[in-house]
């Protein structure tokens, strides 16, 4: 009887309280997991509101969509370059010898129901993913969100940008179509250009002299496991730090570096974020339904003696492509040793771009002597130097991006390609400082007018 009583008490503890199923579930969870106090506090976690805070969330949503669609694609993709005869429904390639990888991508695109939709959503999500990470970082920079105590998280964000862009490159290399093969050929050449180590590195990475028969099989685990795992881990760290340190906020009434104002996570914020996730998924699905992306059957299989005009990488590699196209053919011979011209735009330039970005939080500290704790963001309209730097940087990248498609733009604008190249070579040097200077003057003027009007 006593034990019966104990059992009833236990059951009561598990299921007794709570008027609704949610209440009973909460009771059950607390009994079996514990930690109700902590959870109760976190349900009231405050999120400051601003449209700009959703840029990072879009990146997170894209990652979730990429994993989901990627698992579907992995069920059908074959990472082998063994020759097979194409026998699918795309008639122009009927009977053509292609690689197993290319064949499997055509099959899953054209002969697996819903396959094309999932593949196109995957590709669009990747394009938006890198864009969201980039714009999110730009917002961080413009509002100086990288200051104490978020210096480390700025580094995590930069690493995520590098990893997402690199994994995108790996992803569009997998289908073994003509464009992706040409991209790999160029990657091999860029690796080869590194002094002393280049040829060995290229040979080890690709498994021999290009073209090698095993490169797709090497890229595959990197694309679907290694890099996604690294991205997921860094995302966890990124969000964990965000959770512990709380979100930054724009200046406003009642807001300070010590006090935050916003909506509680449950229910408003969670409901809205769930909605935004679905909206993001809906928009990407709409893209996948109506906007063709990377139609590899039109490009044909990769054969090392075929090439195509208007060959562009995905947008996030466009700046690098532009730099490689624009840098003059200054091969340097020193005592019988060659430094190929592509070494500078392909290897040195990315280092020159990213190294300063990694030291931004500490450079800001040295420049402003501001080592205080910040939870309130700076306004871009009130900090001319920072805003000018961002404008110049974006201008620089934009000119590079245009140069990455200079053959297409030359035709579209009706100018000769060498002339356009020459103009862009001048612009890439002249335009960024000019835009930065103009931004500085404009923002400073506005900031002064604003300050005097407040006074």
């Amino acid at each position, binding site marked *: 009887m006593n034990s019966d009583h104990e059992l009833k008490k236990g059951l009561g503890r598990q299921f007794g309280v709570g008027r609704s199923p949610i209440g009973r579930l909460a009771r059950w969870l607390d009994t079996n997991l514990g930690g109700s106090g902590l959870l109760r506090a976190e349900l009231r976690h405050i999120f400051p509101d601003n449209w700009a805070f959703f840029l990072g969330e879009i990146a997170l949503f894209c990652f979730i969509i990429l994993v989901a669609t990627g698992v579907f694609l992995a069920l059908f993709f074959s990472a082998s370059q063994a020759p097979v005869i194409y026998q699918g429904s795309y008639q122009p390639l009927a009977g053509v010898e292609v690689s197993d990888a290319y064949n499997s991508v055509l099959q899953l695109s054209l002969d697996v129901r819903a396959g094309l939709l999932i593949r196109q959503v995957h590709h669009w999500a990747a394009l938006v993913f890198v864009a969201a990470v980039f714009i999110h970082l730009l917002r961080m920079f413009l509002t100086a969100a990288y200051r104490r105590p978020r210096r480390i998280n700025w580094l995590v964000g930069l690493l995520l940008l590098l990893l997402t862009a690199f994994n995108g490159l790996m992803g569009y290399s997998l289908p073994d179509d003509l464009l992706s093969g040409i991209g790999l050929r160029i990657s091999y050449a860029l690796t080869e250009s590194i002094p002393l180590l280049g040829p060995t590195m290229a040979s080890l990475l690709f498994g021999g002299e290009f073209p090698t028969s095993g490169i797709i099989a090497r890229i595959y685990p990197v694309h679907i496991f290694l890099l996604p795992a690294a991205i997921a881990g860094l995302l966890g760290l990124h969000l964990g730090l965000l959770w512990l340190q709380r979100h930054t906020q724009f200046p406003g009434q009642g807001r300070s570096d010590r006090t935050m104002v916003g909506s509680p996570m449950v229910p408003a914020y969670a409901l809205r974020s769930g909605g935004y996730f679905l909206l993001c998924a*809906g928009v990407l699905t709409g893209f996948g339904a109506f906007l063709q992306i990377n139609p590899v059957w039109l490009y044909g299989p990769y054969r090392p003696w075929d*090439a195509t005009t208007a060959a562009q990488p995905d947008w996030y590699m466009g700046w690098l492509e532009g730099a490689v196209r624009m840098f*003059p053919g200054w091969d340097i011979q020193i005592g019988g040793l*060659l430094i190929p011209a*592509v070494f500078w735009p392909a290897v040195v330039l990315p280092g020159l771009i990213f190294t300063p970005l990694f030291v931004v939080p500490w450079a800001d500290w040295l420049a402003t002597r501001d080592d205080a704790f910040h939870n309130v963001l700076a306004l871009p309209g009130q900090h001319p130097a920072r805003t000018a730097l961002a404008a110049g940087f974006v201008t620089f990248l934009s000119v590079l991006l245009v140069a990455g498609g200079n053959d297409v733009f030359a035709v579209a604008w009706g100018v000769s390609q060498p002339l356009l190249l020459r103009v862009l070579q001048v612009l890439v040097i002249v335009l960024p400082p000019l835009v930065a200077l103009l931004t500085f003057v404009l923002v400073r003027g506005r900031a002064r007018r604003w300050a005097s009007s407040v006074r």
Partner: protein
Amino acid sequence: MSAPQGRPPRPPAGPPTWPVGLGLAATVGGSIGFAVAYIRDAGNAWLGGCLALALLGLGLALAFWGRDLAGDEVISGPYPVPPDDASGQTALANQLEDHASALTRRGFLFKALIGAVVVFALSQVVLLGSLGPWPGRSLFSTGWKKGRRLVTVEGEPVTREALATGGFLVAFPEGGEDDANSQVVLLHFVNGDFTPQPGRESWSPEDFVAYSRICTHAGCPVAQYEDVAQVLVCPCHQSTFDVLHGAAPVSGPAGRPLPQLPLAIDADGYLIAQSDFTVSVGPGFWDAT
């Protein structure tokens, strides 16, 4: 005194609920449409369009609902206390140093531990050797040899009759029709147009000239021939090579000319190579010739 009679005043109307209802209706419609489109194999636009409608509908419903709730409730709270307090930091540092001293107080043993871990980590680098063959001399040679015939990609040997003046074709060494790094572009110039480079006078019999087809910039096939300007253009980065003057780069990012293959014509009229290329083909690397 005129207290209102009858019903009490109605509470102020909340935010409109119709957007949420509309969104939910779109979700149901889109979901059913998606399933029907799938079963009927209605194509990518119907399938994706219906799925997008369903997702957007549900998303809108949640977002509107959440927005209305957020208007209800704005709360404020403290940020985590900044660890500005120096004594706290010092205490933490001391505590950690105490724990670490269990290791560090045995100075030599601790250094040995670090050393052993470093040696172990370095030893794992040898595994990189399994990744691929060392490049060796493979970058310095191609499939061309003395007397090897030029063939088309189909394996058809190229004779002097196969290519009229002004024409061009892509050729490979016989037996290596898929040898990417041996591909050449064979040009047959109108008599008198072409002047050989010094030292290469015997390489272009009957004005047949062969250049490596691998761009010296980043390795793409130099696939475009513009016969009016007499240049070869790489479609990847628009490096342009003057075929009348040793395929020297005249525009674009390439820094070195396309290597020229020494040609001969044998007694039966077949085009053959005199030797391999005299320099390494393709993109540059540190010890390229």
